[in-house]
Structure formats: structure tokens, C-alpha cells
């Protein structure tokens, strides 16, 4: 028989009355009991008797609740419940204190975003050239030294070095050379349009053996054996020979040289310091075969045999070089190697490991773009600073809020929580916040990366598809959460329950001290970054506005003027006639780093040249209008004159050259040098070239201001790489249109490439400007993070002291008095931070400025400026809350006691 609904309801009520709350279990038990009762009723018992019997015998071991307890104990994992509980409480807490939690998450996520960006940057910068097989055995040979007191550092070597080392030193397994010849105009034989390319170099056929760039078409072993062969990147192949195989095709360089494409290689990786799209065989150029040991034009890379000691090999190579160079020293300078060294000169060769080239190179010129180790370190430090600022905010806020949670701790302890539980609870809360912040930070990074890439001139990517990266991020979030949460966790959990009820533990002195220390640290970092930013900007400003000895404004540079060949002079004449043009000049030598340079040894005519009386001077080939167009100042003598034929053997010296030659004035002064064989660049002994000094030009900067102004001479000659045009107006686009029209008239189909002298000038300091901008942004962010923390802290303090302020006002305190009282404490902290930060900043800036030979004076005002800025920002942050608290009606704050 079946029980009636009424009976079932009775049982349901009774079971629930007996304390069964687990729904799943109670359903089953009720069913079970019902079946038993039904059986007993079938045996003739009344419902109530049957039920009584059933319930007493139901569980031989105890009551229904015991079954329930047993079930819960069996099925539920205690830790899981506990952790779920932690989560629940943590989330409730965070939701309840939205303001603080929001500020915490915001500050931390901005901090995380900054650090993450910097991490990506550093990772990219340190990843260069690690992908080559045997990269630990590949070195570049570089030279340092000093001749006649002129120091030099060059990443290039003599032409015969590479092959000499491979054939004579068994330690050197393979070598490859590069010779850069600047930009070329490239076109296909049938194409009408040429493109200006700058990723070109001449290199040995061993290139693909030494470096691991994959060749997709052609034979890497033989590709660059013959003269006039070229290997091109996949990108270049697609550009010039779209949709067909480039192999065997022809490329025309600079309009007259036909190169056969013998290989196509995969585009060079972004993190390679070698960035070329075109590799021409070195066999093409005569210069590759010369045997001069004193002329250095070739970037030389070697691969050593396995297990070769770098230091020993360096010695062997130096010795080898000494032996080879000695005969030439004797032949041309008349001294032996020993005498050369005895005179205080030195040349030393060094092996630069491949993987370090990108970060550690700091040469005036280099084979490709290089980075800077200092920037990487600086950024790493900034990243750590910013993250620690964000963490400190977090700790500060959490401990500050301890007052509100003190009672919670007390109650929990009274109810039997042990300290470990509380620590776990608080740590979990901070880890949740941290995970949350990392999530937002990651989103921020994804959003701001394009901007950062533009700013830092990189192509970074967030490796979202890398599990390793996500795991790393997750771990970092947990660790950050633990670090940031440890102090509050241990601090809060140490409260004694009785004290929390009385309210004494919230006024703990030690707590306030730690908090002050952290605020001081935050402002220390902010002030440091402010002063740093201002100093870098000042130096940049100084460089850009310093009197540089020529007028860089309003000068247009037209590239590849040599392509006009014979129409060159007519073009110049017609451009000159334009109303917006003041003057024009042909010369590839420009007072900007990266343009043509030519230096040689000169001496006063009549002297017997030795190492003490020769001067290593730049000799620039210019035309008659150069000085005028560049806006340089003649101090003494005269400019070149077309009417005076003998000017073809005249020079104009700069002040530095005058000083080094020991000339007082220009009367009857001559300098001379060896004559050179025009074909292979070797010195013709016994023959000399003599120049008459006709003028002195004011010193002008022609390299970065990190370098001193070196001796320099101008002479008349043909150098047609670039035409410089001085404009008389600021209507640049109009002038450019006019000039381009003329250009098209003479050089149909040739690309019209131009730039401005002042832009090129600024390009020299691109790294510095970039540094300044990035530095400025991060400094700003760190200040914002710091202020965010300070703001929250001030809010909290004001809240804490609401009653105190109320009473003070009732007793007659003025609003300004109270604002002063509240701001005083923070001001003290900022001043202490300033006192610590100023000397550190001074030390750092002085160190950085050491790099520059021409640098701005850093005075006290800079430091004061930084300090005052930080102070004002802090005061504004704090005063908002102070004024709000002080202006509040005391009736309201005191009523609810």
C-alpha cells in the first residue's frame, strides 16, 4: 500500500524537525522511511505506531543527524569548502569597499601594464642574434686604439684580415666580411621605376655558412661566389619579381650595374642586428682583394673552432695583426711597430661575441641598428620601481584599512580562527585583487602596445598564444599578490581580540611608521624620476639649441643627385634660379653623423712626417657654394672662389685643425699628405699632395655632441651624393614641388628623395629623445600611481579622524587650521623623500652626462624644481580630502556617536 500525502507530509516535517537539512539526503531518507512504514502498516500497524518503530530502529548507530554528519564528512572535501568560503568572504569584502579595492586594482594594473611593457621591451632587446647556430662561437673583430692622442673605436678591420685568419690560424674556422656602400637605387631591367634601397651590403660567399639565415631558393654555398651576383630576401623578391621565381633574374643597381639573383633567403629576423634585403657578392668590388693592413673598411666576423678560449685567441689575432701591419708601418710612416707603440700609440683588437653586438656596440657607425645596455638596465630599474610603487600602495591601503577590519579579526579569533586561517584569508584577498589587476594590466598592454611601439621604435608583440607567457604572468600575479599581501596579512592577523574590541590596536605606532616609510619611498621614486626627466630634456634642449657652427634650418637635402650625371650642373643652375632658393651645393659630406667621411694623415709642409707631428684630419670634398649654403662662418681668410684656379689645391681648415697643426694664422701655410693610388687606395711612396690653406672656418659640430670636434679641412672636388638647397622661405611644400618639377625634367623616372637638414640633425639624438619621452611617460605614471595611493590614504585618514575634526571645529578650530593639520604630516614625508632623492638623482645625472663632451650645467634649481613639483602634487592630492573633511558640518559627524 502507498502512504497518503498527509502521512508523507508528516514524515517530511518530522525529518526536517530532526535536523536534516541536506536536501539530497533528506529525500532519500524520507523515501526509505516511507517504504519501511508501509511494510509495517501492511502488517497491521497504525501509521503513527509504524512510524515510531521505524524511526527508533532506523539507524542502529544513532540519530538521523549522525547519518547526515557522516554523509557530509564523507562526501565533502573540507579544504574545498574552506577555500570556497575564503573566496566568498574575499569577494564580499572587495565589493563592500569598492573605492579602496578600485584604487588598489587601478594602481596595480597600471603598474603591471608598465612593467609588462618594459618586460616585453627588455625581452626583445636581449633576444638579439641568439637564433644562429653556433652563435656562441661567432665573434666580430673590433679595434680600439689611439694615434697621436686621437682615440678611436671602430667595428671594422682591414680587407685581408678575414682570409688571413682562416688560412693562418687553425683556431679560426670561418670568416665573413661586409662592406657597406650606403644606399642604392634598384630596378629591374624592364622596370621604369627605381626604388631607393638602404638594406644593401657586399659580403663574402661564406655568409650563409656563418649565419643561420635560411635560403629558400638557390644554393647557399655558391650563391655569392661570382662577381655581380646578389642574394635577396623574400620580401625584396616579392617586391621586384611578384609571383615569379626571382632566381636567375637580373637587378640593376644605380642604373649601370647588372646583378644576377642567385639566391633568395627568408627575411632576416627582427631580432638580428644584421638587417639586409640585398647581399651582393664581395667579389664584385676591387677593394675586397686589396692587401692593405692599414686601411680599415670591412666588418669582419669569424667563427672559431669548438672549445677555443676567447682571451687566448684575441692575443693570437693581435699578434697576427701586428706582424702583418708592421712592414706597412715601416714603409709608409718610416717607423717600426715598436717605435709606433713607444710613441704612446696603441691599437688593440677585440673579439665581440655575436650575441652581445646589438647591446654593447657604441661606435660612431655600425653595420645595423644597435641598442643600448644602459637603456635596458634603466628600464628594468624603472619597471621594478613602478611595480614596487603599486605594491606599496596596496600594502599601505590594506594596513590602513586594518582599523575597519580589526573587529572582524577579533570576532573571527573569538570564534576559533587561528592565525594561519586569517593569514590565508588576507593573502587570498590580495591574490584575487592581484589577479584581477594583472588581467586589466594585460588588456591595457594590448591596447597601448601600438603606441609604445611607435614611441620606442620597436615591433613588439604580446605573446598571448604562448602558454609559457600566460603561466609566467599568472605566477607573477600570484607572487605579487603574496608579496603585497604578506605584510597586511601578518599584521592584521596578529591583533589580540580583546584589543580590537577596545579599539586600541588600530592606533598602533609601529604601523604608522611603516606606512610613513612606504610613502617616503614612493615619493623618493617619484622625485627621482621627475628630476631625471627634466635633466634629460634639458640636455636634449641644450643639444638642439646649442650654437653648432652652421645653420641647420631651411636646408633641403636631395638624395642621389649623382644619378643626374651630366645634367647635374644644369639642374643646379635651374634650381638656383627659383625665387625660393638662396643657394645650392653638391657634396655628400654633411655635418650630420652618418654621411660621408674621409680622414687621413696630414702634416705641415716641410716637416718630415713622424708620429708626433702628423695630424689625423677629416678632408671633405665640397663645391664652391658649400660654406655659403651651410651657413658656416669664415673667421679668417676667404671662401673658395671660382675665379681663382689655384683653389683646386686649396683648403679651408676649422679652428681645431689650425690648433693641431700649430698654425697661428693662414699666411703662407701648406699642409701635405701621401699621394694615393686611385685604383686600390694604396699609398704611392715618395709622392705627396700639397694643399694651401686659404681660410679658417669656425668650428662646427659634425658628429654627435658625445664627440669632440675633430680637425677638419674642406677642399674643392667632385662629391655629388647629395644636393643641399638653402631656402629663403618657410613655404616648404611649395618649394619642394618646384624643385621636384625640375628634378623630373632631368631625371625622368628617378625617385625624388629629400629630407631636411634639421630633421637629420635631430635623428642623431633620436635615441635620447626616445629615452626622454619614454622616461617622461613612465615618470608621469609613477607619479599618478603614487598619488592614487596617497589620495586613498588621505581619504582614509580623514575618515578616521572625522570625529576628531568635528570636535576641533566645535571647540573653535578654523577650516584652514584643520587643513594645515592634516596636510602637515604628508608634507613632512615628502620633504624627507626629497632629501634622500636629491643626492641620488644628482649622482645619476652626473653619470649620464659624462657621456657628452658638450653638456648642460645642472644647477640646484633643477632639484628644487623636482622637489617642489612633487610637493605640490602631493599637497593637491591630500588637500582635496583635507578640505572636504574640514569643511564638513561638525553636527553631522558628531551626531551618530
Amino acid at each position, binding site marked *: 500500500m502507498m502512504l497518503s500525502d498527509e502521512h508523507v507530509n508528516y514524515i517530511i516535517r518530522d525529518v526536517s524537525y530532526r535536523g536534516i537539512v541536506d536536501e539530497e539526503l533528506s529525500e532519500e531518507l524520507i523515501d526509505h522511511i516511507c517504504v519501511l512504514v508501509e511494510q509495517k502498516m501492511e502488517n497491521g500497524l497504525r501509521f503513527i505506531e509504524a512510524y515510531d518503530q521505524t524511526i527508533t530502529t532506523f539507524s542502529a*548507530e544513532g540519530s538521523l543527524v549522525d547519518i547526515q554528519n557522516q554523509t557530509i564528512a564523507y562526501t565533502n572535501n573540507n579544504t574545498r569548502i574552506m577555500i570556497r568560503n575564503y573566496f566568498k568572504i574575499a569577494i564580499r569584502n572587495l565589493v563592500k569597499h569598492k573605492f579602496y579595492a578600485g584604487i588598489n586594482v587601478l594602481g596595480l594594473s597600471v603598474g603591471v601594464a608598465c612593467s609588462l611593457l618594459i618586460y616585453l621591451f627588455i625581452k626583445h632587446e636581449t633576444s638579439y642574434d641568439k637564433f644562429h647556430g653556433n652563435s656562441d662561437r661567432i665573434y666580430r673583430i673590433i679595434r680600439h686604439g689611439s694615434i697621436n692622442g686621437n682615440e678611436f673605436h671602430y667595428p671594422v678591420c682591414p680587407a685581408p684580415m678575414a682570409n688571413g685568419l682562416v688560412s693562418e690560424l687553425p683556431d679560426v674556422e670561418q670568416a665573413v666580411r661586409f662592406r657597406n656602400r650606403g644606399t642604392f637605387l634598384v630596378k629591374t631591367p624592364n622596370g621604369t621605376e627605381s626604388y631607393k634601397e638602404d638594406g644593401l651590403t657586399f659580403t663574402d660567399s661564406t655568409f650563409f655558412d656563418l649565419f643561420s639565415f635560411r635560403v629558400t631558393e638557390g644554393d647557399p654555398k655558391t650563391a655569392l661566389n661570382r662577381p655581380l651576383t646578389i642574394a635577396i630576401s623574400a620580401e625584396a623578391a616579392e617586391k621586384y619579381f611578384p609571383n615569379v621565381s626571382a632566381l636567375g633574374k637580373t637587378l640593376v643597381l644605380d642604373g649601370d650595374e647588372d646583378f644576377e639573383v642567385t639566391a633568395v633567403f627568408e627575411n632576416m629576423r627582427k631580432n638580428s642586428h644584421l638587417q639586409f634585403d640585398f647581399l651582393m657578392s664581395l667579389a664584385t668590388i676591387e677593394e675586397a682583394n686589396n692587401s692593405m693592413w692599414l686601411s680599415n673598411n670591412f666588418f669582419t666576423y669569424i667563427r672559431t673552432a669548438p672549445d677555443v678560449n676567447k682571451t687566448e685567441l684575441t692575443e693570437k689575432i693581435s699578434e697576427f695583426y701586428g706582424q702583418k701591419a708592421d712592414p706597412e708601418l715601416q714603409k709608409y710612416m718610416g717607423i717600426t711597430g715598436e717605435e709606433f707603440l713607444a710613441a704612446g700609440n696603441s691599437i688593440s683588437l677585440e673579439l665581440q661575441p655575436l650575441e652581445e653586438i646589438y647591446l654593447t656596440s657604441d661606435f660612431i657607425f655600425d653595420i645595423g641598428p644597435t641598442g643600448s645596455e644602459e637603456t635596458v638596465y634603466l628600464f628594468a630599474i624603472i619597471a621594478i620601481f613602478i611595480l614596487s610603487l603599486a605594491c606599496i600602495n596596496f600594502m599601505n591601503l590594506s594596513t590602513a584599512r586594518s582599523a575597519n577590519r580589526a573587529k572582524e579579526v577579533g570576532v573571527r579569533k573569538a570564534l576559533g580562527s587561528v592565525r594561519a586561517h586569517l593569514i590565508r584569508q588576507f593573502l587570498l584577498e590580495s591574490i584575487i585583487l592581484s589577479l584581477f589587476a594583472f588581467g586589466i594590466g594585460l588588456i591595457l598592454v594590448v591596447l597601448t602596445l601600438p603606441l609604445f611601439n611607435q614611441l620606442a621604435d620597436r615591433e613588439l608583440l604580446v605573446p598571448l598564444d604562448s602558454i609559457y607567457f600566460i603561466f609566467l604572468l599568472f605566477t607573477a600575479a600570484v607572487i605579487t599578490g603574496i608579496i603585497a599581501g604578506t605584510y597586511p596579512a601578518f599584521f592584521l592577523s596578529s591583533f589580540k581580540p580583546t584589543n580590537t574590541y577596545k579599539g586600541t590596536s588600530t592606533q598602533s605606532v609601529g604601523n604608522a611608521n611603516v606606512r610613513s616609510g612606504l610613502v617616503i619611498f614612493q615619493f623618493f621614486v617619484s622625485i627621482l624620476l621627475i628630476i631625471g626627466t627634466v635633466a634629460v630634456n634639458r640636455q636634449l634642449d641644450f643639444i638642439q639649441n646649442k650654437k653648432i657652427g652652421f645653420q641647420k634650418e631651411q636646408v633641403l637635402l636631395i638624395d642621389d643627385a649623382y644619378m643626374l650625371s651630366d645634367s647635374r650642373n644644369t639642374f643646379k643652375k635651374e634650381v638656383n634660379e627659383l625665387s625660393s632658393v638662396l643657394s645650392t651645393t653638391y657634396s655628400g659630406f654633411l655635418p650630420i653623423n652618418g654621411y660621408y667621411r674621409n680622414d687621413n694623415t696630414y702634416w705641415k709642409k716641410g716637416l718630415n712626417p713622424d708620429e708626433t707631428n702628423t695630424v689625423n684630419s677629416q678632408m671633405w670634398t665640397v663645391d664652391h657654394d658649400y660654406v655659403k649654403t651651410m651657413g658656416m662662418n669664415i673667421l679668417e681668410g676667404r671662401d673658395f672662389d671660382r675665379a681663382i684656379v689655384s683653389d683646386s689645391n686649396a683648403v679651408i681648415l676649422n679652428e681645431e685643425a689650425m690648433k693641431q697643426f700649430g698654425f697661428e694664422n693662414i699666411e703662407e701655410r701648406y699642409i701635405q699628405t701621401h699621394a694615393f693610388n686611385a685604383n686600390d687606395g694604396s699609398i704611392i711612396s715618395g709622392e705627396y699632395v700639397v694643399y694651401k690653406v686659404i681660410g679658417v672656418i669656425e668650428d662646427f659640430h659634425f658628429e654627435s655632441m658625445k664627440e669632440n670636434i675633430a680637425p677638419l679641412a674642406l677642399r674643392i672636388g667632385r662629391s655629388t651624393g647629395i644636393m643641399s638647397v638653402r631656402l629663403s622661405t618657410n613655404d616648404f611644400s611649395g618649394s619642394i614641388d618646384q624643385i621636384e618639377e625640375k628634378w623630373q625634367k632631368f631625371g625622368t623616372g628617378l625617385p625624388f628623395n629629400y629630407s631636411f637638414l634639421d630633421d637629420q640633425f635631430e635623428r642623431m639624438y633620436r635615441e635620447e629623445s626616445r629615452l626622454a619621452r619614454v622616461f617622461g611617460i613612465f615618470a608621469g605614471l609613477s607619479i599618478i600611481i603614487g598619488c592614487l595611493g596617497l589620495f586613498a590614504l588621505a581619504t582614509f585618514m580623514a575618515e578616521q579622524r572625522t570625529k576628531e575634526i568635528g570636535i576641533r571645529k566645535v571647540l573653535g578650530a578654523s577650516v584652514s587650521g584643520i587643513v594645515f593639520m592634516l596636510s602637515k604630516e604628508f608634507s613632512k614625508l615628502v620633504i624627507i623623500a626629497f632629501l634622500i632623492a636629491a643626492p641620488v638623482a644628482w649622482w645619476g645625472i652626473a653619470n649620464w652626462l659624462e657621456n657628452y663632451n658638450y653638456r648642460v650645467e645642472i644647477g640646484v634649481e633643477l632639484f628644487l624644481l623636482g622637489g617642489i613639483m612633487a610637493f605640490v602634487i602631493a599637497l593637491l592630492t591630500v588637500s582635496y580630502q583635507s578640505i572636504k573633511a574640514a569643511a564638513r558640518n561638525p553636527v553631522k559627524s558628531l551626531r551618530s556617536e
Partner: protein
Amino acid sequence: MHSPELLKGTLQTIILKLLADHGKMYGYEITQKVRDLSDESLQLTEGSLYPTLHKLEAQGLLKTKKISLGKRVRKYYFLTSIGQNTAIKKVEDFEAFIKTMFRVLQISPQSI
């Protein structure tokens, strides 16, 4: 009646084996089945049956299906695929255990 102490270690094996043989069963049915099979010498108590059932369910060896009987709900248990494998293994383990016990206690099975 056997001592409940002896039953304790074998409860899971019994439940799994029963469900493997009979498909789905509910709590009362299981106690009855055990009683019948053991000629009333084994009596499962509710106090040990239900906690064990819930534990097996939490471990993923059992699944449940509820059938409504008017006001009451009857909950049937059946094996998951993991539960089926475990049932076979537990029975094998127990068989091996008994054989070992026979040797250890020097009982001859024929004497029963």
C-alpha cells in the same frame, strides 16, 4: 548476523557489485538485496549505507536519477563508466584478499 566491523571494509565493494549486476537501485532496495543474498545474515544499516553512497557519488563512481512518487522522491543510483571499472577491480581485489586470508588463517574453503 555478522559483526558490522567486518562489513565496513567491504561496503563499497558490495554496493558497486550490486549496482553492476542490477543496474539502477535505490537505498532501501540495496539493503533488501543484501539481506536476501546473505540469507539475512548481513544487515546494512542506513547510517553506513547513505554516507557511503554519497561518497561514491562525490568520487564520480555513481550517478543518480530521481523519480517522483507523488510527494516522495525516489533516488536511483547507477554506475558511471569509471564506476563499472572500479566495481570489477574491487571484486577482483576482494577475491584476492580472501584467498590470502584463507592462507593466512589456514582455512580450507571446502570446509565451509
